[in-house]
């Protein structure tokens, strides 16, 4: 599927769209003549889109921090598990199993620290990483406000923040969709499903 690797090792022919001419591969009927090869076109477009969409990869710092967090977490839980009593293999205590798992976490995280630094599967935090932070804050705010003033106002606020500030929608569509959404949830939960959500109205 991705065997056509135009850059590697082939005599360069930049700018010629159908320059890939391995012996018997040009489709006879559909895309011959001077038309660019359909497959290469699609491959190029998909590759471009994927590259556009993907956030930049994080560097070694991410891997190291993650591994250290793993080690720290494992050590912390190992200490706690030890406190619950290990017992013996014949009569396992409550702490034996969590202790074994904690040790495993420490070992694996240590392994990551040693050999995993070059991995590129992390995503870097960019300016747009502020958005999930705001999102998380609104989640927490709603959870805190729900029992106090009911769900309508926090839900409305969440919709407004997410649509207007995080999503860049216009005030009009934000207002309309927010009110309709909250009203729908109101009707659905309180009347349709008879679930006792804390509510104001």
């Amino acid at each position, binding site marked *: 599927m991705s065997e056509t690797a135009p*850059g590697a090792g082939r005599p360069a022919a930049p700018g010629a769209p159908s320059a890939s001419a391995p012996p018997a591969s040009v489709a006879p009927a559909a895309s011959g003549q001077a038309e660019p090869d359909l*497959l290469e076109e699609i491959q190029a477009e998909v590759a471009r889109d994927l590259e556009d969409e993907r956030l930049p990869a994080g560097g070694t710092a991410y891997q190291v921090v993650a591994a250290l967090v793993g080690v720290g977490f494992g050590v912390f839980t190992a200490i706690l598990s030890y406190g619950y009593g290990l017992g013996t293999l014949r009569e396992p205590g409550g702490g034996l199993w969590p202790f074994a798992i904690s040790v495993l976490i420490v070992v694996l995280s240590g392994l990551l620290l040693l050999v*995993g630094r070059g991995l590129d599967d992390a995503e870097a935090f960019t300016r747009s990483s502020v958005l999930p932070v705001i999102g998380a804050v609104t989640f927490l705010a709603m959870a805190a406000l729900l029992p106090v003033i009911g769900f309508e106002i926090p839900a409305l606020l*969440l919709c407004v923040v997410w649509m207007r500030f995080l999503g860049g929608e216009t005030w009009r569509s934000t207002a309309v969709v927010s009110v309709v959404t909250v009203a729908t949830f109101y009707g659905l939960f309180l009347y349709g499903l008879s679930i006792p959500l804390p509510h104001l109205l």
Partner: protein
Amino acid sequence: MDFQAFLDGFGVAAQPTNLLFCLIGVLVGMLIGVLPGLGPAATIAILLPVAYSVGDPVAGIIMLAGIYYGAQYGGTITSVLLRLPGEASSVVTVFDGFALAKQGKAGTALGIAAIGSFIGATISIIGLTVLGPFVASFALDFGDPEYAALALLGVLLVATVGNGNMVKALVAAAIGLLLATIGRDSFTGASRFTFDSLQLSDGIDFVVVAMGLFGVGEILHNLEARHGKVQAPAAIANIWPSRSELKQSSGAIGRGSVIGFFLGILPGGGAVMSSLVAYAAEKKRAKDPSRFGRGAIEGVAAPETANNAAATSSFIPLLTIGIPANASMAILFGALLVLNVTPSPQLIEERPDVFWGLINSMYIGNIILLALSIPLVGVFVRVLRVRPAILAPITALITILGVYTIRNSVFDIFVMIVFGIVGYLMKKVGFEPGPLVLAFVLGSLIESSTRRSLLIFDGDPTGFVTRPISGTILAFLVLVIVLSVARKVVGRRTAPGASAGPAPSPDDRPDHDRTDREESLR
């Protein structure tokens, strides 16, 4: 096989409530298959409270299962029409599917995909019907050591065969096992990791973890990720593939079904892997492989058949042994537990209404999907035009209000948010949440089985190895570990600078090409 029970299952599946929830499930499944952002695992997690509030476990699980296999149908639509894979298992369909669409044959592609999906799923369901009781009867010989070994193997396979770095997946799984220990220990009565909190003394609710990790985590991640501009969909001129095209793809459909069925049973395998393998196999055996990627009908038929077959056969380990094969199955496992149904080899005997009701609902669900997927294409394409900024807060509200409805507890909302943040951070640093949820769900099973086994063996761990079945499973476990490590070591030695992923076109990135050429000359 108990034929009467099989027929009774249709009686169960055909009850109006169950039919309704089947319809809802497959429609929602198709919808999220079309929409980028939420996957089936996340949606199942988010809708767990709905399944719970219905009361009847059969209806709830029918709906959740419908979401899972329905999503496989939906992902195709965007692949073919918009060159945008809605699901990871439809990525491979993009090439030939969109090529066909460009040639004005979008209807052919969609039609073949729908037919292939239906046939693949149906063959898989038949396999499930026949094989299921057989496996369940075999697994009745399992004792605690066998369960411990098998569950461990399942977790390990998902960690090694699945996406992402193996070591990280194992760390995630280990954390999941630890999370399962929170609460009161059933053996000694002591409280573990509860930090004197009353709410933690019963352990963390699985639904809350799943909704947080998969639901909130993915919502937060989607806020950040830029989603591609949705281009204008290709027009659909013809509606249905011609007879010759059907005949041409019949081989691909047959082979895809078999590949999908077997790969779906394998833990960690599943729909994505099946679609890739089926496509590659089809291309390899084709007389003219160059047709692939340029509108070969088999290039659509094979992966689409395989992914639906795999999605269905991945239910086998769950329903017959009680071991989930992937993250979505793990969430379904948890859902069944919440609904007071314990997946185990005894399920077919104890709750034949659940077992056969669910399996037979899949026949019905697939018929519904086949009938509706083409007519609803227009609707789905219009739905895609709804900007993600509008859908995001709606999904956010569904998760918050949904998790509240489980126990009317605000504490649950906070726990869910915490896990959502954890899930988001995990995604950022390359840890897969799937193994964590899987291990969490199986954690107490593994621990109690292991501890009971140690009691049986009087403290002697070699007992695991000397028992024939558990010994075999453990040998397989060791084999998997050795093979994965070997594969990584060999891979590292043969290709130091190899890059994975789609190849850039020559016109795009000249600098990149130059360095590649230099490297190959070295």
